[in-house]
């Protein structure tokens, strides 16, 4: 098996060299060789051998492996990582104490089972809405900065003006499409949230607080509706 893998590696290297040689003989164009799905799959299966290969990929794999060994799970790596752009929106999943809902279920066996499905739905909606909101904020920033940049450049270089006008229309159309899609998905999420909260209400009626939806669920629903509504 190892021999076969070495042969595969040699073939990959040869293919890469052919690409590289072509690039060099042209004298002007750089050569890039991206690994295919099958090659990546092979590397995954023989990761330990790749790490010990000693070539550039081997060194890279070793360094990446060290990074993974330093954490207990990929989640730790995620938690330690900062957003690429300082101004990039990262979903905020925390709940303000004032926005929390009361519950009559104190993790007793019977009531916890009833709540499980509804709470899973609720959390999924919260996670998705937070992500959607960030997508909206980031897209808005992107569009605004692209338009500002284009307007600046086209003002300086006259020839750019015509190209930019066409480009600008395209960007605006694309953004309008994004906004419509957001609104549609926002409504879907609100429907899902309402179903989740009404399911919780049924559990509350059985195990905890009567008229929970009227007293707490509805207020939470309205708060979420306002929080994630597109205002621009």
């Amino acid at each position, binding site marked *: 098996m190892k021999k076969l893998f070495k042969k595969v590696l040699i073939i990959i290297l040869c293919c890469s060299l052919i690409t590289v040689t072509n*690039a060099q003989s042209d004298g002007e164009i750089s050569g890039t060789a991206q690994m295919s799905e099958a090659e990546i799959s092979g590397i995954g299966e023989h990761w330990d051998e790749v790490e010990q290969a000693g070539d550039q990929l081997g060194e890279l794999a070793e360094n990446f492996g060290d990074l993974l060994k330093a*954490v207990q799970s990929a989640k730790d*790596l995620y938690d330690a990582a900062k957003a690429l*752009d300082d101004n990039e929106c990262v979903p905020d999943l925390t709940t303000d104490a004032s926005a929390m809902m009361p519950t009559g279920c104190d993790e007793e066996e019977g009531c916890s089972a009833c709540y499980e499905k509804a709470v899973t739905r609720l959390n999924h909606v919260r996670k998705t809405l937070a992500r959607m909101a960030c997508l909206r904020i980031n897209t808005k*920033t992107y569009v605004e900065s692209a338009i500002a940049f284009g307007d600046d450049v*086209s003002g300086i270089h006259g020839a750019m003006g015509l190209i930019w006008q066409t480009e600008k229309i395209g960007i605006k159309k694309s953004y309008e499409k994004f906004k419509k899609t*957001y609104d549609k998905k926002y409504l879907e999420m609100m429907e899902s949230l309402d179903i989740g909260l009404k399911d919780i209400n049924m559990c509350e009626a059985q195990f905890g607080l009567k008229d929970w939806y009227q007293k707490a669920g509805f207020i939470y629903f309205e708060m979420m509706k306002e929080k994630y509504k597109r205002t621009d």
Partner: protein
Amino acid sequence: MNKKKILPLICFLLCSIAAQAQPFTLDKKFKAEKLILHKFNVPSEPKAKGRISITKVTQLEDTLFYFVKDASIYSPVYVGLQTKDSTDNEPLQVTLHKMSWRKAERKGTTDAKGYWHENFKTENDFGIRVVTKNKPAVYTIMVWVGDEAKMEIPSAFKKGTSFKTGSNFFKDNLLYLIIAGLAVLAAVLFFKLKKKKNEKIV
């Protein structure tokens, strides 16, 4: 709404902004190579599960641009570059871009061993720019996007709280109300008895 429905939802949202994907430029001649992510699974290292792109490059121009699509904000991202050691070579300059190729979000150079890396999180696209003084520059670039991290969402519930309504007030304080009632009754009886005694004396 289950996960199967959520994923296309996010993809659909991302697709609607696909026209603006990758850091922005007006230069039509400008070409950035898309680094394609493939499924990656290492049986001996479950933490590495995700998608990966590995590219071997021989750079003959001063600058090359690459971009990556479809990263998730809930996934860790690693970008690594390995070239020859810097004994006879100038280190490579690497910058990462988000909104525009004009503004670098992260920048660095390959170290003495020819290695550079960054890890971060981002949504959808980002760009990589590699600048070299020594040509040709031979290097391998690796981009890994891990599977989405399982986010623990803080509860939206305040446990053990209940609504303070009138009926609950009586239920909760029933014992105190009975004691108070008995005390009042005892006081009334006491005063009545005292009054009767006073009447008898008169």
